[in-house]
């Protein structure tokens, strides 16, 4: 996957552009949408807690990979939504999901050796969508492009105010 900062910057740009059309969407809600883009990166918990160790402890097959899928985003967004006040749940959930899906789509565009992305639409389908292979995650130009996009959107946003 792309690095976390790239995910956050792209979600910031998308959510900020959305504020130009949606009245209630202000800066504090943009931050929530940006946070949603971090959900797929929770899969990195495997660096700290190896799934094989969890498998041995539980005695059942286990892999945190679905955190970086549509199903994982929908459920974790629900968990985070619970931290907000009840009347803010629809907005919080919508934005967290939007941010999370933006990160999944971005990851679905990166290069895979066989030309097919991971099954990020799981559990709707185990199908692996074709990928245009636009980038590899450790390429600094990816972050540069995301930073330029975010800066351009921020400049336009400031000019509009």
């Amino acid at each position, binding site marked *: 996957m792309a690095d976390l900062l790239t*995910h*956050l910057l792209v979600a910031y740009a998308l959510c900020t552009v959305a504020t130009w059309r949606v009245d209630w969407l202000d800066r*504090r809600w943009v931050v929530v949408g940006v946070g949603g883009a*971090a959900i797929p990166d929770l899969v990195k918990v495997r660096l700290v807690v190896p799934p094989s160790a969890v498998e041995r402890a539980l005695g059942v097959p286990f*892999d945190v990979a679905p955190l970086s899928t549509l199903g994982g985003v929908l*459920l974790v967004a629900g968990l985070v939504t619970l931290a907000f*006040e009840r009347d803010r749940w629809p907005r919080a959930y919508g934005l967290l999901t939007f941010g999370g899906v933006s990160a999944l789509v971005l990851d679905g565009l990166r290069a*895979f050796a*066989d030309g097919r992305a991971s099954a990020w639409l799981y559990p709707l389908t185990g199908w692996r969508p074709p990928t245009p292979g636009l980038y590899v995650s*450790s390429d600094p130009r990816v972050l540069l492009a995301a930073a330029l996009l975010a800066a351009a959107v921020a400049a336009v946003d400031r000019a509009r105010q």
Partner: protein
Amino acid sequence: MTLRRRAAAAVLLLAAVSGLCVHWAATEPQREAYPQPDELAADYDSYVGEEIRVAGRVTAAEPSALTVVADSDRGPVELRVTGTSAAVAPGGIVQVYGKLRPGRELAARNVVVVSDSGGAEWYKYGVSAVGAVGFLVVFLRQWRVDPATWTLEARDG
């Protein structure tokens, strides 16, 4: 909503996430089109001639071949990837698509260099850490935890 009911909802959602993690792992063999490193570690010879997509760390690089080690639950699986001139140093990570040949050789049809050296991996983690810290700072400027209700509330009301 009371704290108790929110906690109950959180437990339910956590259970659902765990269920997804178990279901994913249990159904992986049906989803995966290619043999997995575990299977190669157990019985390499029965997969010779099959196509595979595998990710691993480069341990040796020659002009037209790479030695790649993939992790598996049964220990590391070492493959000699031939037919590639990918520019990658030992310590880098590659993804290889190709055909398995006898003698733990993988004839590459396509190689994607995920990280061209060990340093490129650290770049990714470093940048991600910067992102995480930066996000927390920005988030806590807009939101705060109300200790009375244990909910997040906007700082400007």
